[in-house]
């Protein structure tokens, strides 16, 4: 604090509180809507801003599926969340595993073609899935991977950022550790498993938070490779719930699904906040 100016301090808090309210408002509205019946939302415009008391029913219908008030069928969100969880874990852990291995190879070995391979990984930074959707879809389809977990996750596993992050980290590991391991008669894999991986724990945690969110929040890719309702991740399944027309939507169930869809990544961010911030700053360096 450079100087004491009570008025300025007041303004700062005011701006921050306003910011927090604006940022939180959409979620508050969503939460409230998910505790009302769809008739309440559609008929009493504007909807009431107090909790509606139908929370349990709405979440039960959303979670386990059931009949909607318009006679349509609501797909169970529970199975979609399961798909999301499996995909997010496969993507994040898969990325970490293959990147640890390749970063280890790049830093601790010298082999012909090392430069070319490194350059190839670097180039993938410039090709986000969005710019090559159709050809990638064709490859996945030719391999018979549509509507499978492999199709949902494997194309998203390759990551240059994770490889670079681990490479940077390995370069800071003191050489003496390698020498000590050698004298003790440990081979490269022994060194990797017993020394390098345990040392990388914080980087792994940081990367896990970022990549879990990345995996959970995928939308475009699942939209292309899944046509079977049992393979919809929740973030994408939400879109399928729109029947069309404002009034005909089962808004309360959609809003409950939205809450359920944002809960797991939000929990991961809040519980692992320290690693999250570290991960964000480091993956972008």
């Amino acid at each position: 604090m450079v100087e004491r100016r009570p008025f300025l301090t007041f303004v700062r808090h005011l701006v921050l509180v306003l910011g927090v309210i604006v940022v939180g408002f959409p979620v508050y509205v969503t939460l409230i809507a998910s505790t009302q019946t769809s008739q309440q939302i559609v008929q009493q415009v504007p909807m009431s801003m107090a909790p509606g008391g139908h929370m349990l029913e709405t979440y039960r219908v959303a979670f386990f599926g059931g009949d909607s008030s318009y006679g349509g069928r609501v797909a169970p969100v529970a199975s979609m969340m399961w798909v999301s969880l499996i995909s997010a874990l496969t993507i994040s852990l898969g990325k970490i595993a293959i990147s640890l291995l390749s970063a280890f190879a790049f830093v601790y070995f010298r082999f012909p073609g090392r430069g070319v391979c490194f350059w190839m990984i670097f180039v993938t930074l410039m090709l986000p899935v969005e710019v090559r959707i159709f050809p990638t879809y064709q490859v996945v389809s030719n391999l018979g991977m549509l509507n499978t977990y492999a199709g949902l996750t494997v194309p998203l596993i390759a990551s240059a950022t994770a490889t670079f992050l681990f490479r940077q980290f390995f370069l800071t590991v003191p050489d003496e550790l390698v020498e000590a391991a050698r004298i003790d008669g440990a081979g490269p894999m022994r060194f990797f498993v017993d020394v390098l991986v345990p040392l990388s724990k914080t980087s792994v945690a940081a990367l896990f938070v970022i990549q879990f969110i990345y995996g959970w929040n995928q939308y475009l890719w699942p939209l292309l490779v899944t046509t079977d309702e049992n393979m919809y991740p929740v973030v994408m399944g939400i879109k399928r719930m729109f029947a069309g027309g404002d009034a005909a939507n089962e808004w309360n169930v959609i809003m409950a699904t939205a809450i359920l869809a944002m809960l797991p990544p939000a929990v991961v961010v809040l519980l692992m906040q320290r690693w999250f911030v570290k991960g964000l700053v480091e993956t972008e360096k």
Partner: protein
Amino acid sequence: MAIEKRVRFRSWWLPWVLIAPQMAIILVFFFVPAVQALYQSVLQQDAFGTSTEFVGFENFKRLWNDDTYLASFKTTAVFSVLVAVCGLSIALLLAVMADRVVRGAAIYKTLLIWPYAVAPAVAGVLWLFMFAPSVGIVSYTLRSLGIEWNHLLDANHAMTLIVMAAVWKQISYNFLFFLAGLQSIPKSLIEAAAIDGATPWRRFWTIVFPLLSPTTFFLLVINVVYAFFETFAIVDTATNGGPGKETAILVYKVYYDGFKALDLGGSAAQSVVLMIIVITLTVLQFRYVEKKVQY
């Protein structure tokens, strides 16, 4: 930091085994599709895939003469400028305020960073609900203020809606980076200026803002990339590219033309154009971020 290790292991086969999984994935899912996109962009295929002919740069020429594609370029430009400018200004304001707060700083930070976890698709749904013309709470309030909100009919309303959703989702990211940037500015500089009698306002524009320029530039590039590519889900859930094609950004058009209209050559040519844009942005980012802009 050393670029190369002094001590290495020796094995002629192990490094290949170690990089094999990563190389296999990038070859199959990155290089094959990228080459295929390049190849398809010079072919013309009918919708059933029964006949294909080589047409050279015909697909690109068609794009160049296609008014909807040029309009989509304009839409994307307007959209990304709005998202970047609004997102950065709001986040910078909040970060500057949070940087100097003593009490409750950690709580504000926690309460401001969680939207990062919200999927763009979910963000689109939340904002769509608030602004739904017949049931939305905000659209109702606007109507009582005399503004007839309907993003299904009014292109400006639709654009405003997706910009708000996109900015909301990105604020936490920008906020964290601005806060980190602010906290790395030496306090002595600011104290010196305060002793010389500079007001907080003056101190911000003459000291803090210039010193923050590397962060700002970095975030500018990241936000443009975000607006170009990651906002597909927001557009798809909130407006479906409508009304008409007024909010169909480039990525949305690639998707639509390839998967809905089945114009494979045109879609591939659009992919190639997008690749060129990403490569340009990435090169820009690396050149300037490496140089740390100016101090």
